[in-house]
């Protein structure tokens, strides 16, 4: 029947839209991550390791505050704290600081620190040269470890941002390892 052919043609097109939109919903995830990397939408910092020489030249005379905070999902097992709360820094220059992890439990803890920056738009200007957050960490029972962080603030960051807070939330790897 002529009608049937016509209908099947329409159906095929519409089903194609459906299938396309289904996969589009999954494509939204990497798309979102790209948008976040470009705009700092959700305050997530780039996980890319920056090269040191990127920053050695222009050192701005501007000063700004950078604060370090942390959050541990289970404080009684693993304490995870910045050694210093605040630093006054100049954009363009490389600085370092240290987070201290104390395993208070009687077992080994594997986990990862997830960074977040506030205000969110500062996230893309925070460059990390070396960070414990790049990989999973293992802490032996009772162990106290100093974890170094080398970072710089891009001098392109808007001048109105005067205070940046960098937060690390430490998550145990039970959930993380399942993923990979």
């Amino acid at each position, binding site marked *: 029947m002529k*009608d049937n052919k*016509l*209908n099947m043609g*329409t*159906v095929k097109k*519409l*089903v194609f*839209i*459906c*299938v*396309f*939109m*289904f*996969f*589009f*919903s*999954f494509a*939204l*995830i990497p798309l*979102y991550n790209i948008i*976040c990397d470009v*705009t*700092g*939408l*959700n*305050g*997530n910092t780039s996980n890319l390791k920056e090269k040191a020489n990127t920053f050695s030249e222009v050192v701005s005379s501007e000063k700004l505050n950078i604060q370090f905070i942390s959050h541990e999902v289970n404080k009684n097992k693993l304490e995870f704290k910045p050694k210093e709360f605040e630093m006054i820094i100049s954009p363009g220059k490389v600085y370092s600081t240290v987070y201290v992890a104390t395993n208070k439990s009687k077992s080994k803890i594997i986990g*990862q620190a*997830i960074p977040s920056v506030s205000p*969110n*738009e500062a996230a893309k200007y925070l460059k990390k040269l070396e960070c414990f957050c790049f990989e999973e960490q293992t802490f032996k029972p009772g162990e106290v470890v100093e974890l170094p962080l080398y970072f710089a603030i891009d001098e392109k960051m808007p001048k109105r941002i005067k205070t940046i807070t960098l937060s690390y*939330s430490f*998550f*145990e790897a039970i*959930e*993380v390892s*399942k*993923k990979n």
Partner: protein
Amino acid sequence: MSTVVKDTHHDEHPSGIMRWLTTTNHKDIGSLYLWFSLIMFFIGGLMALVIRSELFQPGLQFVDPQFFNSMTTMHALVMIFGVVMPAFTGLANWMIPIMIGGPDMALPRMNNYSFWIMPFAFSMLLSTLFMDGGAPAGGWTLYPPLSLQTGDAFPFLIFAIHFMGLSSIMGAINIVATILNMRAPGMTLMKMPLFVWTWLITAFLLIAVMPVLAGGVTMLLTDKFFGTSFFNAAGGGDPVMFQHIFWFFGHPEVYILILPSFGVVSAIIPTFARKPLFGYSSMVYATASIAFLSFIVWAHHMFTVGMPLAGEVFFMLATMLIAVPTGVKVFNWVTTMWRGAMTFETPMLFAIGFIVMFTIGGFSGLMLAITPADFQYHDTYFVVAHFHYVLVPGSVFAIMAAVYFWLPKWTGNMYPETLGKVHFWLSTFFVNLTFFPMHFVGLAGMPRRIPDYSLQFADYNMIASIGAFGFGFAQLIFVYLIFKTIRGGEKATDEVWEGAEGLEWTLSSPPPYHSFNTPPVIK
């Protein structure tokens, strides 16, 4: 609705239960959808009454807070996916082939499947009420991580949503194919009744966004059971990402719930004003622009998640823009009424009620669009008042208007007019008694989705609860009236209403089993 066809059919088909299980007739399937919707309306309504009972007074009286959360979650899922969407699909099945002068839907076999998936999906959803860990209680928006704390019910919830989505996609494909391919010769697109137009656009919205919901909930499922971290910060995901996906579906979804009502009202107002619809083509364009805008406003549901300033401003402006085409519609309806010769039968009363109360919901929607003010409104009873105004005296009233409007056509009998008016006035009174005070408690600081509240909110919650029970009981009149009309009553003419225009009024009341076997002549 159902008994009618028996007397008039000319075809061979099985009788009894097999007839309904195997039917491919657009009128039978339309009736099935409408009956299903009516049953779910009372199930969802009962859940609402559980909620309103608990909120009648401060303190915990009747239910556990967890069960209360299940009630709000299930009430929303049932009312959205089980009542409003199937009711509109039912109306589409019944009316679209007739309105465009076609014999039936384009894909009758698939039509049957898409209906019968629904009872299956909802049995699955409702069965979660009896499961370990209770029914889903994380809100119908399913935000992770909370929704991932659901117990045994979780996979059932997700698969139920998949099946509902599948059913609506199949229904939408069928409707698009019908409208594009089954029109009578001479029925050009710009001659189609607005109900057909609004449904065509709605169907495209469904096809575009239901798969996105399916994708989103699939990711929830794999996050919970297969160790992915789409929305889990610990694994590099972001819980806010789910909200973006959800509302990318969710905002077009609210237009899916309202656009067909625009079509219904655009059919009823000219009929009873005895005057052609004002601005037909601008109505079509307005509908299309609302549909288009609905894709770029989703984040106004998420103003408090901490988006960058530019994002907040963009979504505020885009959202406010929707007021323009929506306003055009309201102005067009009012101008249609202007200098008409109006009578106020029940469908007209419901349609006027729709315009007034939907516009009130539109006003609160405009207020919610203003980002700084939204920080105060967000997740309060002000929002609850807003979306209930657009959905209850909005969508639900439009569905009721449509039922009163076409019931004489479907059954061949006039409904009892006085009783219909009583139903309208009681519904209108109680719906306002229920939802208007919610604006006040919301502004005064009452969050939504809480089973218990501080004392300053007590008075208005009590009023709202009384209103809810009144509204619930008033709907029994509707059921009684439908049964009475199906059984018999004053015979309806073919034209039914004095000012009626359109192909459905050229058929007999009730219409023959197959609508137009020979295409009608279009003026």
